[in-house]
């Protein structure tokens, strides 16, 4: 197992261990408002991640937006094979958590600092819910 460059502890976490490429957003997220749920591409005009495909990524969002749709949507995109590996929220809401649990998708909430300053898109990270840790494994 790789030795982490940095380790962060989060407040709450669920799901299996996830390791992969980070995608870091300055704006919050809703699968209904922002995501084309047939392609996995963020399509909301003006979203900082507009045009980015979330498939197999570890997504960092400061907040959750809306919306009740995530409860079904995460399961739907997982069945379609376009789900991310994990969602790392600064602040989330219960729908995201319910949806992630329903889809068995890794989710965490609560950042010890502004992770957008520490982890950049393209970095390799590992999320370990049982330990409530986010590890930076490699810089882009």
């Amino acid at each position, binding site marked *: 197992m790789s030795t982490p460059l940095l380790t962060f502890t989060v407040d*709450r*976490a*669920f799901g299996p261990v996830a390791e992969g490429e980070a995608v870091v957003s300055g704006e*919050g997220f809703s699968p*209904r*408002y*922002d*995501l*084309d*749920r047939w392609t996995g591409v963020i*399509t*909301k*005009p003006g979203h900082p991640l507009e045009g980015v495909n979330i498939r197999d990524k570890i997504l960092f969002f*400061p*907040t*959750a*937006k*809306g*919306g*009740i*749709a*995530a*409860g*079904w*949507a995460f*399961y*739907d995109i*997982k*069945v*379609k094979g376009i789900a991310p590996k994990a969602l790392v929220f600064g*602040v*989330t*809401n*219960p*729908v995201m*958590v*319910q*949806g992630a*649990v*329903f889809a068995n998708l890794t*989710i965490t*909430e609560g950042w010890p600092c502004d992770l957008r300053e520490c982890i950049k898109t393209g970095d390799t990270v590992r999320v370990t819910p049982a330990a409530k840790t986010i590890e930076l494994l490699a810089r882009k």
Partner: protein
Amino acid sequence: MELTAEEQAMVDGALGVPVQRAIELQIEVGRFYDAKRFVPVTNVHMMGDIEVMGDGGLEHLRCLAEQHARCVVNITTNARCFDFAHVDSLKQDQREAEKELQLIGYLKRMNVMTTDTCINYQTLYQPHLGEHVAWGDTGTVIWANSVCGARSNFESGPAAMAAAMTQRVPEYGFHLDCHRKGTFVVDVQAELDDLAEWGALAKLVGESHQSYFAVPVFTGINRAPSADELKHLGASLASYGSMAMFHMVGFTPEAPTLEAALGGNRPVETMTIGNADIERVFASYRNPSGSCNFVVFSGPQLSLFEMKYLAGLFDGRKVCGGTTVFATTNNGVLSAARKLGYARQLEDAGVTILEGVCVYILQNLTQMRAANGWTNMISNSAKIVNTITAHKFNTILRRTRDCVDIACTGAFR
């Protein structure tokens, strides 16, 4: 979590596999939020349509129905993605419509009342102070917590179904006193007349304080707001801020005074909103193409009072050629609007009334937008100008009267 003997029996499978799976889901969510126990619920409202759940969700429902899953609490459904009378005219996918019918069949087999409305609180059920419910969509939840003083978290479709099968929810979030207190103050110095202005106020507050556990306390409101005004305020706060509760001093049940609303919390901020701030919201929308051929009154569905007001504004006028105007409501409101003549007035003007749906969740909306050349969506709902964006609309918020004028003249204002 502490489990009662009945809850342990559910976990052990004594009440069948669907109940076992339901309570397992609830326990995981409860653990995430450090819930100590379950609380019983008396009413459930769920979102479930093919646009949001896809084939995976449909298969999940089929399995549940085949396992004889049964909801034991009254459970109603939110707006869905098809008005079956308009599938052909909207050029929606017939195969998806058939799936939606299958889905409705599964829900009915599980004792779900397919009411297809996002304004259950105006037309179906009004929970009382302190009553625990399990509601989604978000606009219904913020209404329950704020206006009724009832207690609900955002409950997604699968979570709401789980609650209806187990008759309970994990006790966290807005079921607990500690999260229901105001966290910041919004002093309203603006004159708010139109529904769009209430939505604009909420956009300013929600967008700048995005957090499920942020609870704004509104002060300075100088007249009793109508139910529809509170509806647009709440729906927009939930949309922009992901918020589930607000207080309005003097008007909502847990806010007889500012002190009571804050409940001992020291507000992290006091923001003031004036008329100029509201005007800046309207001025912030751009119309680079100049197109205004799609006007929407939806999100949330319209009450009977909104239907009456809108019918009056459209009375004797005609929607501009090439322009589409949608108004959405539920079966109960539409029935009354037909009896009272409002629906006829709207349809005579060229407005398309859709029943049981909301525009932003219509199946095939992205393709519909492209096929009809809708680049902009103009609406008096601050919520829908936010929620529809994944379909690549440029959205524009306007006051109700301006929306009607735009629809009838084709001139942007």
